[in-house]
């Protein structure tokens, strides 16, 4: 029975890393939002599975939050924002997709080397596996943020980074405050979306291109 | 002999130096005239000039300040004290330990300091020319002189002039390269300090070329006499300095008998005469240098002095 638990958790975490790569691959905003929703579903499943494996009821709450918030509310809000603000659909990248994917692979390799060599000690295999994949998702999320020009794609990059964190938190057996942390992060993301919506980032600048934000630095120094 | 004897010899030296100074200048002028196939004024002419100047009234410029009137006396006093400290016919004078060779150089420097200031006091451009050039010449001549002092001090292991003369006289220093360099440097500095031909023409009236004369242009009457006498004293000082250091024979040792003193005076007089003739010969055989050639000339003197010192440092024998 033990290794089944381990296998499923391992599978779900691996899938999440794969979806992160998918996120890097997308070049249209609509598809990007839907792939993110997919990653959120996988996150909810793995957290629920961890809850079942560690029979820690509070993790179910985290899974529920992830499911409702990140699969339904945020994607819909982003979709409407894209429509309302008339942001053009094309995802502008700084570096073309090929090199980004290679960089992604390098990052995953790095996190595996760092994590597995590090925890060669007595920590149990499950925690080690989860951490390695969580670190990969975090690094890939960060990579996405720095290689995309649209503010929306940056938000999604940040949210996938946050998914990695929740995966890691869930993986740590018996870690307190997981729920509070996921709630804090949800509030944070809500702030981002509402903020960019309310401040009408779109209205102040013709595109939501993060570089456009810079043009108004003007003479200040 | 005791203190009174010492005092007697010291005052005798001061009187002797003062008395013979105009005579020396007269001899030099006479020798130059004869070399230039001229009759030339008599040897005693400088005395008559001084007497004439003493009796004439002093004409002062309207702009002349009290410094202008006091300067001649200070210049004469400083030069006279310096000349009195250089052993002429006897070493080991009673006041010889009050000052050494560096102090004598500095006394001459203070004389020059006040002469330059007096030159600038009246506020004419010629006074400015004289002072400016005098200061340029002195800024090289004085270090050369001090280098000389270093060389002599290293040979005689003392800067006291009477001790240096004593060492030269007694310990048989013998011929040394550094001393030869020092002699040449001393001659060059003496020529520069006294304003003789290659550096400055004492008898010139061409304003643009003169240095010493430009500073004393405004002086007249007794003030001019004082300054002329100071110039002559300086010539005696340098010649007796060369004499007592490089040609020390005939110097009466401290506390010698009257006979030895007389011999000393004779030897000194002979040395002065020879020096005067050599100076006259040197002056007639060379033309005056352009003003901005003087730094190279004096630079050479400084290098010779420094070389002499360094050679001495290298080995005792050189």
């Amino acid at each position, binding site marked *: 029975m033990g290794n089944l638990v381990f296998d499923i958790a391992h599978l779900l975490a691996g899938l999440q890393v794969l979806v992160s790569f998918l996120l890097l691959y997308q070049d249209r905003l609509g598809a990007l939002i839907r792939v993110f929703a997919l990653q959120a579903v996988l996150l909810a499943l793995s957290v629920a599975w961890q809850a079942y494996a560690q029979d820690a009821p509070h993790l179910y709450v985290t899974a529920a939050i992830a499911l409702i918030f990140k699969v339904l509310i945020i994607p819909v809000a982003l979709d409407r924002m894209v429509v309302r603000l008339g942001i053009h659909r094309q995802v502008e990248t700084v570096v073309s997709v090929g090199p980004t994917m290679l960089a992604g692979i390098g990052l995953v390799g790095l996190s595996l080397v760092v994590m597995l*060599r590090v*925890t060669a000690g007595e920590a149990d295999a499950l925690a080690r596996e989860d951490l390695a994949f969580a670190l990969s998702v975090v690094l890939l999320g960060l990579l996405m943020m720095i290689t995309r020009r649209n503010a929306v794609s940056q938000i999604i990059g940040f949210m996938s980074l946050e998914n990695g964190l929740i995966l890691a938190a869930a993986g740590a057996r018996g870690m307190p405050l997981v729920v509070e942390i996921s709630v804090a992060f949800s509030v944070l993301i809500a702030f981002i979306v509402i903020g960019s919506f309310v401040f009408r980032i779109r209205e102040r600048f013709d595109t939501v291109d993060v570089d456009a934000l810079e043009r108004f630095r003007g003479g*200040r120094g | 002999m005791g203190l009174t004897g010492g005092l007697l010899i010291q005052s005798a030296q001061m009187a002797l130096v003062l008395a013979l100074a105009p005579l020396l200048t007269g001899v030099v002028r006479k020798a130059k005239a004869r070399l230039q196939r001229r009759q030339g004024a008599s040897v005693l002419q400088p005395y008559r000039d001084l007497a004439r100047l003493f009796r004439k009234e002093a004409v002062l410029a309207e702009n002349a300040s009290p410094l202008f009137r006091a300067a001649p006396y200070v210049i004469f006093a400083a030069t006279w004290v310096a000349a009195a400290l250089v052993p002429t016919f006897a070493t080991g004078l009673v006041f010889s330990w009050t000052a050494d060779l560096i102090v004598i150089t500095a006394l001459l420097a203070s004389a020059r300091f006040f002469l330059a200031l007096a030159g600038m006091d009246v506020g004419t451009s010629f006074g400015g020319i004289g002072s400016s050039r005098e200061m340029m010449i002195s800024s090289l001549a004085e270090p050369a002189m001090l280098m000389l002092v270093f060389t002599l001090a290293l040979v005689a292991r003392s800067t006291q002039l009477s001790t240096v003369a004593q060492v030269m006289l007694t310990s048989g220093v013998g011929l040394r390269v550094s001393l030869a360099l020092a002699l040449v440097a001393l001659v060059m500095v003496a020529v520069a300090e006294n304003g003789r031909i290659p550096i400055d023409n004492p008898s010139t009236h061409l304003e643009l070329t003169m240095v010493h004369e430009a500073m004393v242009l405004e002086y007249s009457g007794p003030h001019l006499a004082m300054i002329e006498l100071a110039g002559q004293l300086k010539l005696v000082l340098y010649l007796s300095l060369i004499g007592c250091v490089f040609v020390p024979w005939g110097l009466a040792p401290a506390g010698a008998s009257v006979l030895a003193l007389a011999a000393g005076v004779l030897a000194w007089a002979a040395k002065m005469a020879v020096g005067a003739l050599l100076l006259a010969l040197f002056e007639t055989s060379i033309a005056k240098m352009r003003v901005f050639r003087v730094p190279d000339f004096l630079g050479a003197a400084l290098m010779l002095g420094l070389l002499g010192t360094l050679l001495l440092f290298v080995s005792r024998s050189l």
Partner: protein
Amino acid sequence: MSLVGLLLAIPSAAALVLALVPDWRLAARLNVGASAASFLMVLAVVRDPPAAGPLVLIDGLNSIVLVLNGFVVFTTSLFSARYVVHEAATGRLPPLRLRLYHALYQVLAFAMTLALVTNNLGVMWVAIEIATLTTVVVVGLYRTHEAIEAAWKYFMLGSVGIALALFGTILVYVAAQPVVGEGQDGMIWSVLVGKVAAFDPGLINLAFVFLLLGYGTKVGLTPLNAWLPDAHAEGPTPVSAVLSGLLLNVALYAVLRVKMLVAAHPDALAPGPLLMAAGLASLLLAGVMLYRRRDIKRLFAYSSIEHMGLMVFAFGIGGPIANFAGLLHMAMHALTKSAIYFAVGAAAQAKGSQRLSDITGLTQSHPALGWALVAAVAAIMGMPPAGVFMSEFLLVTSTFARMPALGVALAVSLLLGFGALAGKLAGIAFGTPSPDAGPVKVAYGPIFAHLALVFVAGVWLPPAIADALRQAAAALG
């Protein structure tokens, strides 16, 4: 209800009340009252600290920062009361936003106090998270596009930093879990520091890297401090003072907690060199960047980066004297930098602009304000009567003795910073005065209170404070 509970209750209650009070004049006074009450409560807590519980830990280190925090929040609220009058008059802050401002001021105070007091790493993370959010909103309060752009940049960088810090916290828990068992204990700092020797060194190193980068972003270490100049310059000046003076210290306190944790582990990566590298890099970069600044508040923001770099460098070197110098510098910098911002706020309002070219000849146009600013900037530059001179003296002497190359690098960067500030100060204080934008009431009370403390500490450090600093320095290891 323990004292500490009360200490946390005051700001949170005040925040709620201030959110509801429509009249901003009353709100300003309430704000001052609440800050005064919390300061007195801090003094009470620090006098007889409660035992270290699962949630609360009061020891030598955080009592210093707590007292500093309480005092400067109180004096800043005094300055804010005076500052807000001008802002309301000129209409730059309409009443609604003033209400939000006062409420968020107290929330920020609450978050900082919570971060300092808590024993639980998770709670500390949450507290700093709340502080980040409130700062984002307050920085963007003026609604100018520079303010929004500064807020957005701060938000993005802050969030990434917080995320990294969270990952570090999780790693600490995972490392502690086999030794300490599941549940709450994995996050209690005092428990962890006792048992850290048994943890897996690799995990601890990784946790330290993430926590250093996470909280380092909040401390403003190079290459993570791009947000700091804009955030400090665009927000209202009282907030800039709190940010520069206190929030940076709180983040540094968190980094110190983590450093103590890692230093306790024998064969883990020594934290010293990492801190020294980051500190020196911040020192050098800020020292060089000061020369080209054209905005007065950005100038002093970069000066904050420089001084935070100096403190991190001091703690990186370790040893009783360097730690003592670091802690002393933390106190002196908080007091001096906030006094500078009080004076700069008034000067910017007097001249109607924050550009250095518009603020000249202050000692002639506003003598008292001008000379107060000169005294404050002289103090931050390390001039003798001020305490900063003592801490820099101790640091430079102890550094050069042990690591000559670093000592020289430290001296050169201090000289660079000194030169830049001297040049800019001469421009501000001397020369022909620039036209005034209108009368301004300057809050001299807080400025002179801070400067008096700094100048007294520079000459004679009271033994009680000196002993407290020495014990905390010893604890830092």
